[in-house]
């Protein structure tokens, strides 16, 4: 929004240049979003929407919160579970993504090799999401490859049940899917780092670790934050991965919205979507406080 306002005070030409994109944004983003917010205050029967102004949908979301009958209410529990996946996935993808991007940027010298290795990183995306997730079953399942190997090696007495349809498998699938979203921006940031700075660090007596920690990490912060925004937004809104890998037994905010929309309870789904949007925006705002993206890019 701020960018648009800044355009207003500069030349009209710039305003015209920004116009088409702004229009697309208004029609395909702002308008639908406004509609969702409006509908979230409506009421619905089984087959029609009833325009109204009622906070009932929001009251329903937080019914019984924070606690009902000794248990956390559904909404809080669902958000906590989703946030947990978010934190774990972020931690692992950030670590992995940083290591892989570092390797690609600083250890692989030829551009050809970098390109080839980059393509290797995208291999998981060559098949459809659903097929990728279904193929975890023969690997992680009760009679899957890993359990059969462990049993044959007498490492375990009974098949490990927590490999599939568990928090573990959900995080595993997330990491598998989203590490790429960390690698790309991190790699991009690292490629812009002036190699002379690393030499200077060496000359000043820094060890390899110190150079990574004090030079590379701060200078790739922008990439890290952009990658984090991708991962956070994707994990918070996901319901397919949690559904398939959690054996449909783990709740996610996206799943609740999907079920409600499937049962034509659009106002309730819209209210949930608005709450989710608020939470994600807060998280992204917090991330953006850590780095001034416009200055860095």
């Amino acid at each position: 929004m701020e960018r648009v306002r800044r355009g207003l005070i500069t030349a009209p030409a710039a305003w015209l240049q920004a116009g088409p994109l702004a229009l697309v944004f208004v029609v395909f983003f702002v308008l639908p979003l406004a509609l969702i917010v409006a509908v979230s205050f409506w009421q619905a029967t089984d087959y029609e929407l009833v325009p109204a102004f009622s906070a009932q949908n929001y009251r329903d979301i937080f019914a019984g919160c924070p606690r009902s009958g000794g248990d956390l209410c559904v909404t809080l529990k669902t958000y906590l579970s989703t946030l947990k996946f978010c934190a774990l996935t972020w931690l692992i993808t950030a670590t992995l993504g940083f290591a892989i991007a570092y390797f690609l940027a600083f250890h692989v010298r030829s551009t050809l090799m970098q390109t080839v290795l980059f393509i290797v990183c995208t291999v998981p995306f060559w098949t459809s999401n659903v097929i990728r997730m279904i193929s975890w079953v023969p690997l992680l399942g009760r009679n899957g490859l890993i359990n059969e190997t462990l049993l044959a090696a007498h490492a375990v007495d009974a098949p490990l049940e927590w490999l599939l349809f568990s928090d573990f498998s959900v995080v595993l699938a997330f990491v598998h899917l989203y590490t790429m979203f960390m690698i790309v921006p991190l790699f991009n940031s690292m490629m812009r780092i002036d190699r002379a700075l690393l030499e200077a660090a060496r000359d000043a007596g820094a060890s390899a670790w110190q150079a990574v920690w004090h030079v590379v990490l701060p200078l790739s912060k922008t990439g890290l934050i952009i990658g984090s925004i991708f991962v956070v937004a994707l994990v918070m809104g996901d319901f397919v991965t949690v559904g398939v890998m959690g054996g449909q037994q783990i709740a996610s905010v996206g799943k609740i919205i999907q079920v409600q929309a499937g049962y034509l309870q659009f106002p309730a789904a819209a209210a949930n979507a608005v709450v989710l949007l608020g939470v994600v925006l807060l998280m992204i705002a917090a991330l953006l406080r850590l780095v001034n993206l416009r200055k860095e890019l």
Partner: protein
Amino acid sequence: MKDDHSQPMQPAGLPRRSVLKAGAGLAASGALGFPFVHAAEKVTLRYLGTAVNQDKAIAEKFEADTGIKIQYIPVTTDDVTKRAVTAPNSFDLLDTEYFSLKKIIPAGNLQGMDVKRIKNADKITPLFTKGEVAGKKVGDQGTAPKKVMYLESATGKTFAKAPTQFMTLIPTVYNADTLGIRPDLIKRPIDSWKELLNPEFKGKAAILNIPSIGIMDAAMVVEAAGLYKYPDKGNMTRKEIDLTIKTLIEAKKAGQFRALWKDFNESVNLMASGEVVIQSMWSPAVTAVRTKGIPCTFQPLKEGYRAWAAGFGVPRTLTGKKLDAAYEFINWFLDGWAGAYLNRQGYYSAVLDTAKAKMEAYEWAYWMEGKAAEKDIKAPNGELLAKAGAVRDGGSYEARMGGIACWNAIMDENAYMVQKWNEFVAA
């Protein structure tokens, strides 16, 4: 939203409905209508339904017979209803389950099907028109088809109590569902719904995650376990919903369920991989497990079956050539070839006489009369389903369909039920 523009012009509806439609566009994940091609003479019918019913062979045979093209739009059970209510101009032919009519008919999006234009209307099995199998009444808890079979008028939005000239849906296919089991892994007879929550199968059971159907399976379990007797499983009070969901949540917390499934293929995978040994299942899924050479039984249970039925409806705005083509397809569908095809998949067709004429005597004896197979029984695609000598699970048509305990349903407290179901998933 964008897809609405590719639809043909339509008379302006209530502004409320167009907003609803816009909302649906936002929420729908899949693409809405496909832009259809206007050929000079050739008519294409856009057929909205679930993938289970949309067989390529049926569309090909129909096109070969009549020159009319069928374009399948496969979506999930819940999405069929959603689109029928929110985007009634995105299809020409609706294949949906009877229970969803409680949402679709009041929305006024379907036209009454004129019985006079359906050649075999009087031969439709009395299960639909009177709720009877072989002269005997079957269970009618839930949305039994006879309750929503007829409309007061062609444009009616209310169901008629007695038969009229206008049907809501022309029935096509129906079945009685029960639990699927892996007899090789369970190694003992199973005869009651309560076994689904038997701790013996802890971590090896599954229930389906489609709220309106899953709740019925859960209710069968609650009754079988002697916890409660519902006056009407298909229309629970809030208290009854609470009790049913509480039972499910306790089982879930104790680790009873290995997974919940939403998609037909997921249930096949769970069973075939041995992750699950007892679960809610659909008959073609059992068939699919079996064709992999893995033993799987669609186990008849003493409390009876949960039945479902589907049929064809036509959107109110369909007229002219397309409407004629829709009637032609429906008449063709009831004429035997498709019915025989469905019967060979383990479903039942709406007009049995015409299907019988297109089946071999030994096939009819196996599928419909519950007799031991004289020869190997093959699926329509030629895969071996049962060896000579085998008997169909649940026996004859009368034994299976006569054992219906309840029907898939939309309850009055549907919104509350969905909310509680979400609690079960989150628990």
